[in-house]
């Protein structure tokens, strides 16, 4: 299946470390994932009301671009992109009115940069492009066994807790990613890297999401509860997939230390940073300088230079 890579705007902006370590990990696996040409913003959220059909246009535009570039599916790392693209597909497939309206609009959309050449005829989009999250691609296309073999620097002894957040899991009937109350995919991934994965009940909680901008005190309380639990359990680091979880959990820790005097910082790592580390990527390639809470003391303990061939 031809799969294109969709980083999304946040991965090329504030979450560059997530994009770069994704690409690095894919390279170290000996795989290839090419970015979808001329990709545009997915819109981040799914409209929950019936009349806001316009808020599905961004998602559909991107899925059409993916199809017209010759891909059968796209893979993305950002859970917001994953969730909204997956759900938009369902809306297009199941709701005739939305499908008609969005296709009518996008038929008029500018589809070429060159004003001389007429564009190819518009093909209706019916929801057939696959949407995968990187974790699913790791599990189903690459296989966690192969990932384990490529992790020549298994992170044995590093105690980590997985943090799923909300957009990867819910609503479960639409995302069909894993059990929303007892998911296992991120734990399985982390076990493949060799790290010690601790049991972490708050792993499916919400970090506060965009409320860290609109209602900062409330969101900080939600994030603090998660970090505090991670510290009590004895984790060395908390592993996330989402740039917004990362921001809420990492960037706001200095502020948290002011509000909660007994709070001690804990580093936050992207799952792909951990993977690249386990594949023996050099520490300076992991994008760790952008973190508010410096994970380098922890990461450097687990970084060794092993000179032996990577098994095929």
């Amino acid at each position, binding site marked *: 299946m031809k799969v294109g890579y969709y980083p*999304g*705007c*946040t991965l090329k*902006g*504030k*979450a560059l470390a997530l994009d770069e370590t994704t690409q690095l990990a894919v390279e170290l696996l000996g795989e290839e994932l090419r970015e979808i040409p001329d990709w545009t*913003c997915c*819109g*981040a*959220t799914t*409209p*929950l*009301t*019936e*009349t*806001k059909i316009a*808020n599905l246009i961004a998602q559909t535009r991107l899925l059409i671009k993916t199809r017209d570039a010759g891909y059968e599916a796209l893979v993305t790392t*950002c859970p*917001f*992109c994953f969730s909204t693209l997956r759900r938009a597909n369902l809306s297009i497939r199941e709701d005739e009115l939305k499908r008609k309206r969005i296709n009518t609009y996008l038929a008029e959309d500018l589809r070429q940069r060159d004003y001389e050449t007429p564009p190819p005829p518009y093909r209706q989009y019916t929801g057939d492009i696959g949407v995968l999250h990187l974790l699913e691609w790791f599990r189903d296309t690459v296989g966690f066994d192969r990932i384990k073999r490529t992790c020549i620097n298994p992170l044995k002894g590093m105690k980590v807790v997985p943090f799923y957040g*909300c957009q990867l*899991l*819910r*609503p*479960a*009937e639409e995302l069909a990613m894993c059990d*929303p*109350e007892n998911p296992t995919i991120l734990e399985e991934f982390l076990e493949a890297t060799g790290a010690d994965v601790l049991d972490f009940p708050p792993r499916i*909680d*919400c970090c*506060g*999401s*965009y*409320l*860290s*901008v*609109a*209602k*900062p005190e*409330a*969101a900080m309380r*939600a994030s603090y509860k998660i970090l505090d639990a991670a510290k009590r359990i004895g984790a060395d680091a908390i592993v996330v997939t989402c*740039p*917004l979880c*990362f*921001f809420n959990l990492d*960037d706001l820790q200095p502020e948290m230390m002011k509000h909660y005097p007994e709070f001690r910082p804990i580093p936050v790592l992207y799952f792909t940073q951990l993977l690249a580390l386990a594949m023996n990527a050099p520490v300076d390639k992991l994008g760790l300088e952008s973190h508010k809470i410096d994970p380098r003391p922890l990461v450097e303990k687990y970084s060794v230079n092993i000179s032996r061939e990577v098994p095929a």
Partner: protein
Amino acid sequence: MIRILSPADRREATKRLMESSNQNVMICLQCGKCTAGCPFSEEMDLDPHQMVRMAQLGLLEELMNSEAIWFCATCFTCESRCPVSIDIAAIAEAVRLIVQLGEGDHFGPDDVPKDVSANAPQQALVSLYRKFGS
């Protein structure tokens, strides 16, 4: 000053919310699991299950005037836990939409402090403007 709606107006309000959110609020059994799971129910002046009850009764003005609808992070824990699969986040969004049709942006680009907009990840701002902006 809350206007007292007539029973006919209240039935109309319920119908409007149900059509907009595509949720059948009438099957809610008021079990409270949504409220128990909501990460922000403590900050809300109306708990999620109370919002559903008010939707059943067509008390649209009270819903529109609540702070609760602006504390929803659309994490869908409510929808996930509900035994009859009601998406309470969708109901909150339906109320927000009616407010925004009257007011415009509830929280738009001008409401974000400069240092926050410079640091926050793009997805936070895009999703915020889509949810709380007009």
